[in-house]
């Protein structure tokens, strides 16, 4: 087992490495863009909780928030930035080391 791989875990992105924000990043990585209501429904978070985590991701430059209208319906649309997509890919690669490694045999 590589010591370097283990040490890489210490540099996991703490902005992404939080359950609620990881859910948000996973969903937004899978789609082009999504609004606040869709994220709230998919993540099962309260409005306040979701708003707080989205703000943190926006501060980190991982997503953009656009307030617009679809017809008369106001939308708060979230979309990952290029930096956010690259950060998620890097995070996924590091986590794969944790989850996809060989299972050690019993002594």
């Amino acid at each position: 087992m590589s010591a370097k791989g283990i040490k890489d875990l210490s540099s996991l992105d703490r902005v992404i490495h939080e359950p609620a924000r990881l859910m948000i990043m996973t969903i937004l990585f899978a789609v082009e863009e999504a609004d606040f209501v869709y994220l709230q429904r998919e993540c099962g978070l309260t409005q306040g909780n979701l708003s707080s985590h989205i703000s943190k991701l926006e501060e980190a430059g991982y997503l953009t928030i656009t307030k617009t209208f679809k017809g008369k319906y106001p939308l708060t649309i979230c979309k990952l930035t290029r930096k956010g997509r690259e950060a998620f890919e890097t995070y996924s690669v590091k986590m794969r080391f944790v989850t996809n490694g060989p299972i050690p045999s019993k002594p």
Partner: protein
Amino acid sequence: MSHLTPSVLAARQRARYYRDASGISELVIGAALVVFGSQDYLASKLAPFGHLGRVILVVVILILYGLLMLGNKRIVEWIKERLIYPRTGYVSTQDEADKGETARSPFPVILVLVLIIGVVSFASGYANYARWIWSAAMLLLFGSYVFLSGQFELDPRRSWLFLIPLVGGLAWWNFSKPSPPFMSLAVVVGASLAFASLIRLFTYLVRNPGPPSAAP
């Protein structure tokens, strides 16, 4: 693509399912097919008006059919803005933006339908069996479409909502005496699609009466 983890793939699949879960797209297509197949009936009702009746028929059919088929996306979006987005939110899937993937569209199905009809018409020299051949072609076409679209769905049961009325409608179209007009086949298919879509839309509205609550 190494970053498409199982969780990302699951999120993408859910977004694709959500895009079509309300059945609004299929409802509009079904309405278009009903309009298309009702030409003979409308023509017979407008026949007493002579030339004016023919003009009215052409204008009505062109406007309705054009709106429903060519303007399908705009109409569906207009309905979703009022019924769907306020309840369950808005999402745009990447296959609508990616160049390499084909977004789910009715036009490939329509194209295949036209090709099948052309081949069957050319090959069939047996007028007595024409309805059977066309019915089999419809079942094959839409059965395969439902099966293929079921690969992306979380609930394959909704496929039966369409196939059961379709089979019933085709049975009526084949065995009714006197035989219904040939164009009414489009009405059978369209009505089956619209029926299944209305049930899906009703189910969706019952399950999602409003936006998510503030508290968990």
